[in-house]
């Protein structure tokens, strides 16, 4: 397996950053589904439009854990606007690449941050869709295959 992932991925898998829960989170987002074997949950603490703290919990493969971890480091201390611009590509690049079959994990990490931000707006009575964009249904139906 060592040959499958970059050293950066293995580092974030072995020692994930910002792992855990935030009991007083201002926003929580969860994406993924059990059929595909990856579920990510992001907790955000937001103060004055800045993400002051972030934690994650992920059920999934090595790449799912590493992309979650990397995504948290890329948004921590940044503004909501910056976080909204986070792309899966940026996560992949920061990890020195992912095997093609695992790129979907980086998409999930991006979606998890966006799902949390959507929750932040929703809690404030703001429709998140014009700001965050349309998010994939977190729990899609059984019949669908798992996108790579």
């Amino acid at each position, binding site marked *: 397996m060592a040959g499958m992932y970059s050293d950066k991925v293995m580092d974030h898998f072995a020692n994930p950053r910002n792992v855990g829960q935030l009991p007083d989170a201002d926003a929580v987002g969860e994406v993924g589904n059990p059929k595909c*074997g990856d579920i990510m949950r992001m907790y955000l603490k937001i103060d004055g439009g800045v993400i002051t703290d972030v934690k994650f919990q992920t059920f999934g493969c090595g790449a799912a854990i590493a992309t979650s971890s990397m995504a948290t480091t890329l948004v921590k201390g940044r503004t909501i606007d910056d976080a909204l611009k986070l792309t899966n590509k940026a996560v992949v690049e920061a990890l020195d690449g992912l095997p093609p079959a695992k790129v979907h994990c980086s998409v999930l990490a991006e979606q998890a941050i966006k799902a949390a931000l959507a929750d932040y707006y929703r809690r404030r009575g703001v429709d998140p869709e014009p700001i965050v964009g349309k998010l994939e249904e977190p729990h899609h139906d059984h019949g669908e295959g798992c996108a790579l």
Partner: protein
Amino acid sequence: MSKLIYLDNAATTPCAPQVVQRMAEILAGPGGNPSSHYSIGYEAKQIVEDARAQIAAVLGANPAEIYFTGSGTEADNWAIKGAALAGARRGKKHLITSAFEHHAVLHAMQALQRQGFEVTYLNPTPEGFIRPEDVQAALRPDTALVSVMLANNEIGTIQPVREIAQICRAQGVWCHTDAVQAVGAIPVDVNQLGVDLLSLSAHKFNGPKGVGALYCRKGIALPALLDGGGQEKRRRAGTENVAGIAGAAVALQLAAASLEEKMAHQAALCDYVIDRVLSGIPQVRLNGSRHNRLPGNANLSFAGLEGETILLDLDMQGICASTGSACNSDSLDPSHVLMALGLPEEIGHGSMRFSFGPQNTMEEAKQLCDVLEQISPRRRAMSCMWLQEENTARVYHLKGEH
């Protein structure tokens, strides 16, 4: 890194030293073609025929009933597609198999479906067994073949192939068994089983990779799949893998000679791991029945964890194992075997297969448990499928379910 602990013997096994020695002798020898008519050709032919007789003896077969192939997968494909072809000539276009076969069987069946054959897939019981009465009920006048594996490659459960073969024989339907995981691991006798066709693979019992064999009972007119030269009685063309075939025979004889001892040893290691993990780590389940399973197979699901996480953590500690799920790059779906048992998807994703071989030690089994006891709580603390406060796995409800 300390010494590697190899617990993936169901995937493949290292070659026994005697196998390597025998193959090296042959490869370093004159290397004649068994089809050639001069001394070194006859010599090569003799090596192949001796190996055939040795393998036949272990399986209780006649040497004329053993056909060498390039893999277990080839043997499976030949048996299934050959039987379908023979059946179609008599207007029989229906096949029966189980839903938790190896892909060598399942994908061969699917290929036949695309060509207009009908296939019935029987579901196993939650314990991991195909019921002979389900085979009986699925038989039709146009059934050409029943193919049920002897031992499941993921969960190790041993199928009632003898009873299934009896049902088939009574109806005049050919019966095939994929015995790739069973041969060399448990006693396998073709007459005791009563099957017409049986596939095996040498690298599963400390033989070389690239050598398989198909047992084809006398009187079963299985059409050839590979046309060409006259090898294997014109039924499987291609110059024989002489050294590999000889190596396979050495490996099978070695496995058969120490079978009981080997089975007891592997069972002791497996029992230790299963008992210690089930009692020491909360919410772990053993997949497949505790009884009637391969002595070296432990397939365990760790609720709240995903298999690759465990795999990578083990690999970092020098332990080689396998996820229960076929981690293939085309699909992220959980293992079809575990889904066939009725496991929830998230539990299916959290499954590991540990398969022990004769070379493994109790010390290695203990080390595996030490590492699992260390990994599980640490990784569960990171998982959103583990309820941290309650210290239990979260039950996942799909949309629309409650």
